[in-house]
């Protein structure tokens, strides 16, 4: 490992750390901007009790000390109790719900990668034929259409008109449509990515050589071209996993999946501020870590990339 690579990693980790700190800072001061404290509620609390409560949670200290305490807590995912779901800690709710969102996201990503690479290589080998055109038009549509529209159309067709799948059910059938909806955007993106990089690779000399050798088309594609054309796809998958989870905000709301996204949207309408802050910071952390890992892997995998 050379010095340049090492300094790149240091720089990248620092940026990730600053990002996390920045998000925590934004959330803290955003919370301060809201009128009323965490103990403002319908039930009136006597001044003495309020002072006692504030002392217990450290809210009587100066703002900067409060900020440092919050920062310390947020870095280890300790966001305190939820305001609306009494008796539960925000981090507990997040971990429970994240399991559901994470599994849906992971399956969606596996579907997206498999079919994306498949369609992308078909489109590349059949460039400018009708099947390439169809694949490109469909993938453009999937990228341009907002996920909540795709989700509602699916809901309308499969649950309301055809009535083949249940709405808001926790059985397996209830997870089919949300997973499918979530997988469409990355699938379309991976299709386009695979197509363009495969086209690049297919124009290179070693592919011409393989063809000249008399190898059949599928061997050229799968043994020689695909291995090199998949590098951009692999680097895309890491961050996309994090984005799929945040993108599931509306999808989970529409299909009534009890995941993290649904809880996040619910906490917005409930004005459950610790929950909003906690989810924001938690998802930021995941996103930043995923980006960091995939960036570093990218540099390791592709020696041609320069470190700037």
């Amino acid at each position: 490992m050379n010095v340049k690579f090492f300094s790149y990693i240091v720089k990248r980790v620092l940026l990730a750390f600053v990002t996390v700190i920045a998000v925590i800072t934004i959330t803290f001061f955003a919370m301060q901007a809201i009128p009323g404290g965490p103990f403002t509620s319908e039930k009136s609390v006597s001044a003495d009790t309020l002072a006692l409560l504030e002392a217990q949670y450290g809210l009587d200290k100066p703002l900067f000390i409060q900020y440092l305490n919050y920062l310390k807590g947020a870095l280890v995912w300790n966001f305190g109790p939820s305001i609306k779901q009494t008796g539960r800690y925000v981090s507990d709710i997040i971990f429970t719900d994240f399991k559901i969102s994470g599994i849906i996201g992971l399956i969606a990503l596996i579907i997206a990668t498999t079919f994306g690479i498949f369609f992308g290589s078909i489109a590349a080998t059949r460039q400018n034929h009708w099947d390439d055109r169809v694949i490109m038009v469909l993938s453009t549509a999937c990228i341009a259409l907002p996920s909540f529209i795709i989700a509602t159309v699916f809901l309308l067709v499969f649950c309301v008109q055809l009535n083949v799948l249940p709405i808001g059910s926790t059985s397996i059938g209830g997870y089919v449509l949300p997973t499918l909806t979530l997988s469409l955007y990355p699938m379309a993106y991976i299709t386009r990515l695979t197509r363009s990089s495969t086209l690049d690779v297919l124009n290179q000399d070693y592919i011409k050589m393989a063809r000249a050798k008399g190898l059949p088309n599928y061997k050229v594609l799968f043994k020689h071209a695909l291995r090199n054309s998949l590098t951009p796809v692999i680097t895309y998958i890491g961050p996309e996993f994090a984005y799929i989870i945040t993108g599931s905000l509306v999808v989970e709301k529409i299909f009534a999946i009890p995941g993290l996204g649904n809880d996040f949207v619910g906490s917005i309408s409930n004005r459950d501020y610790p929950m909003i802050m906690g989810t924001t910071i938690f998802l930021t952390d995941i996103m930043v870590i995923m980006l960091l890992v995939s960036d570093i892997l990218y540099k390791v995998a592709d020696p041609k990339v320069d470190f700037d």
Partner: protein
Amino acid sequence: MTGNENGMRLGFGLGKKNPLSMQVDLTRLQRATDEEQKSTDIKGKSSSFAKDGMKRLLKNPIADISMVVILLIVLAVIIIPEVWPYSYDLQLGTKYSDGSYNNLGPMEYGTTELAKIAAGETIWPHLFGTDSLGRDYFIRVVYGARISLIVGVFASVIVLVIGSIYGAISGYFGGKVDMIMMRIVDIIYSLPDLLIIVLLSSILNTVLSFSSGSFLATLGTGMISIFIVFALLYWVGMARLVRGQILSLKKEDFVLASKASGASGPWIIFKHLLPNSLSVIIISVTLQIPSAIFTESFLSFIGLGVSAPMPSLGSLADDALGSIQSYPYRLIIPAAIISLIILAFNLLGDGLRDAFDPKLQK
């Protein structure tokens, strides 16, 4: 004899005739006739970069269709609300104190309207029926599209102004200034934008308040917070793009010439550098509009966008979700229009990029 004199003698020694000389004998040359002179005139008009680009753009059928679609939608949202007999917040049921106006199907009429039609009057039809509060759904969709387009355009203008000025300053001054400014961009760029938008909108919604009746109050806090969020977060992509352009442009000779004649930094930035990166900026703005519309409809859909009774395409879709079993068309119509707008702008942006981005020209 020096070499110089020798050369002169060779070049101009017309008098001395050497039979092997390649020298042109000027006495044997003829003057061209006027007609012959005309044949050397430039025939076509000179073509500029912009003209070339427009020609390429117009040859692209997908971009043409997108332009027509966008133009039609823009005209519709400007004209229709002015001439339509119902307004977006008029509750017909309350006006006639008649419950039959709520939840009308497409092209149906309320009881008092039916009576009027029986009496021979003509009543303007409710093209898409009415919603659960008895408001004409067609005008709400048109108005929603108007709001969505306004958000898209305004947000993009905010992004354009902040991003291009920031990027231009960073790129032009370079060095330490550039480094610090770009680190700030890096940090904002790595923030999870959707989460921050949701966070800020939900907080601004409770914090902001405007005196009722003012323009800002009718727009609603949701809308204002969308603009603030765009002004805070979304300009970084544009700033990076413009900085890159400026970095390559500022090495050009015309900038050096301007500097040599004593031009100031702002003059060079606004007179020379930004106009020369205009094509890249315009393409980026065209692609920014659908992304802003998407963000607005997304926020409205999760209940953070425009405030009632004002509709936006996202909030209309959100309202329709509850009654999806009985009135599916109320969801399909706004959803189709959002998709159409976003798709048209995206395809136009792609077309513009193909037509105007010199790097892509083969």
